[in-house]
């Protein structure tokens, strides 16, 4: 079972950037996007996200499942929000909504405003996912620890981050071995129970041995680190990181976006903007 993110963006323009650029850019972008509901601004941000994502040169075939999952999740969020709120929207009274049609069975009114809101949700989450995905696929596995350490994360926790990513492939392999071993004993994890408790208890013969093996196996790592004096003094990293001019330009671009959007948000210009064509459709 290969659950480890692969270095699919190796050699791409984005992979050649300092790994801190990818982490900081995502944080800046997330805080930019969450302030915006205006479709026009969101389209600009989506375009920025698309260009950024393309620069990682991640083959679509390799991440098709991830994009399908993202699409499914966003649809789910939008549909559930619409159904539970009964088509109501924050900041709008019922009279202000321009109803296009009512959902069959549920009777939920779908208005120009709620449709715009749904499109905005797609753009918001799609953009964030596009800027976030390269972190998994365009950062060299060995750069994770130094990147977090140089971002100010205490070196012990930065090392824990690196260890986490190193453990993932071996734990994935352990899980596959456990699945195979349990299958030989007649256990079939694919046959899940029908109730939540049934589904849960079906996972016990997998989760318990994988967890216990991992903890027991960790003793070797602990001993090795203790023997090398981990934690006795500040750690240095073999990999040296330094921003170049392009890295600084990319970061400046994302900082600029955040500043501009924050200004627009404070001046009330990032609220939901409903296209005239949808309103006229509702009225027509």
């Amino acid at each position, binding site marked *: 079972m290969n659950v480890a993110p692969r270095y699919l963006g190796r050699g791409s323009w984005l992979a050649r950037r300092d790994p801190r650029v990818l982490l900081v850019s995502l944080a800046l972008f997330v805080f930019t996007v969450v302030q915006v509901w205006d479709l026009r601004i969101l389209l600009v941000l989506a375009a920025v996200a698309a260009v950024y994502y393309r620069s990682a040169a991640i083959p679509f075939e390799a991440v098709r499942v991830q994009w399908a999952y993202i699409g499914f999740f966003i649809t*789910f969020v939008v549909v559930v929000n619409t159904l539970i*709120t009964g088509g109501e929207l924050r900041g709008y009274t019922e009279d202000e909504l321009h109803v296009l049609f009512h959902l069959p069975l549920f009777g939920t009114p779908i208005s120009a405003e709620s449709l715009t809101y749904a499109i905005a949700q797609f753009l918001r989450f799609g953009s964030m996912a596009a800027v976030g995905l390269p972190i998994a696929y365009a950062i060299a596995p060995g750069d994770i620890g130094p990147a977090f350490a140089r971002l100010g994360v205490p070196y012990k926790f930065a090392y824990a981050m690196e260890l986490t990513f190193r453990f993932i492939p071996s734990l994935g392999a352990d899980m596959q071995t456990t699945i195979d071993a349990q299958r030989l004993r007649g256990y079939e994890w694919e046959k899940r129970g029908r109730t939540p408790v049934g589904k849960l208890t079906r996972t016990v013969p997998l989760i318990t041995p994988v967890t216990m093996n991992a903890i*027991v196996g*960790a003793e070797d790592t602990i001993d090795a680190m203790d023997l090398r004096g981990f934690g006795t003094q500040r750690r240095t990293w073999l990999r040296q990181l330094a921003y170049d001019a392009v890295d600084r330009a990319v970061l400046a671009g994302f900082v600029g976006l955040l500043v501009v959007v924050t200004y627009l948000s404070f001046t009330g210009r990032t609220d939901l903007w409903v296209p005239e064509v949808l309103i006229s459709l509702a009225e027509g």
Partner: protein
Amino acid sequence: MSSTVLQEDRSSAMWEVTTRVIVYAAIGAALYGVLAFFSILIPGTANVSVRPAFAIVTFFGFAFGPIVGFFTGFVGNMIADQISGWGLLTSWNWSLANGLVGLLAGVFGVWLASSISNRLLRAAVASAAAIVIGFLFVFTDIWLGTADDASVALTANYLPVVVSNLIASVILTPILVAAWDPIQESMGR
């Protein structure tokens, strides 16, 4: 040594960052990220899935302390989201909520030591309390726009995640503690 002194020792020791804490934190986060593969989306909720592996968060918090618990929940959830494609920081507030649950499981595990002597029961109670309190953080979805209002945040996010994780943790955490205790004893840790 009196029980009060023992309690103080446990309380101060749980915030120490040793090699063991770092490695267990990394193992916990990686395990949570990997085992979150077993996710089942709950019908009728906004992005909430049953993750039996969530018990890893409460177990690591309870067994190895709040720092390990926080790291396991916070980083583990980010990794699980990243592996699934959702993105490392897209639902950063949910990762933080997961981290808070792990942290509280560790804190409650120590605090409840004097009042609940049965370790398995204590694990279940500490996990349940940690989940109910820790996941209150997902109400930040209202500010982030993922939930339209408090009723959506409550009915589509908070309640489903709390119920599903309560079921997972109250059942699985004591099982993991029961499996770990004899191993810990045999290892002399």
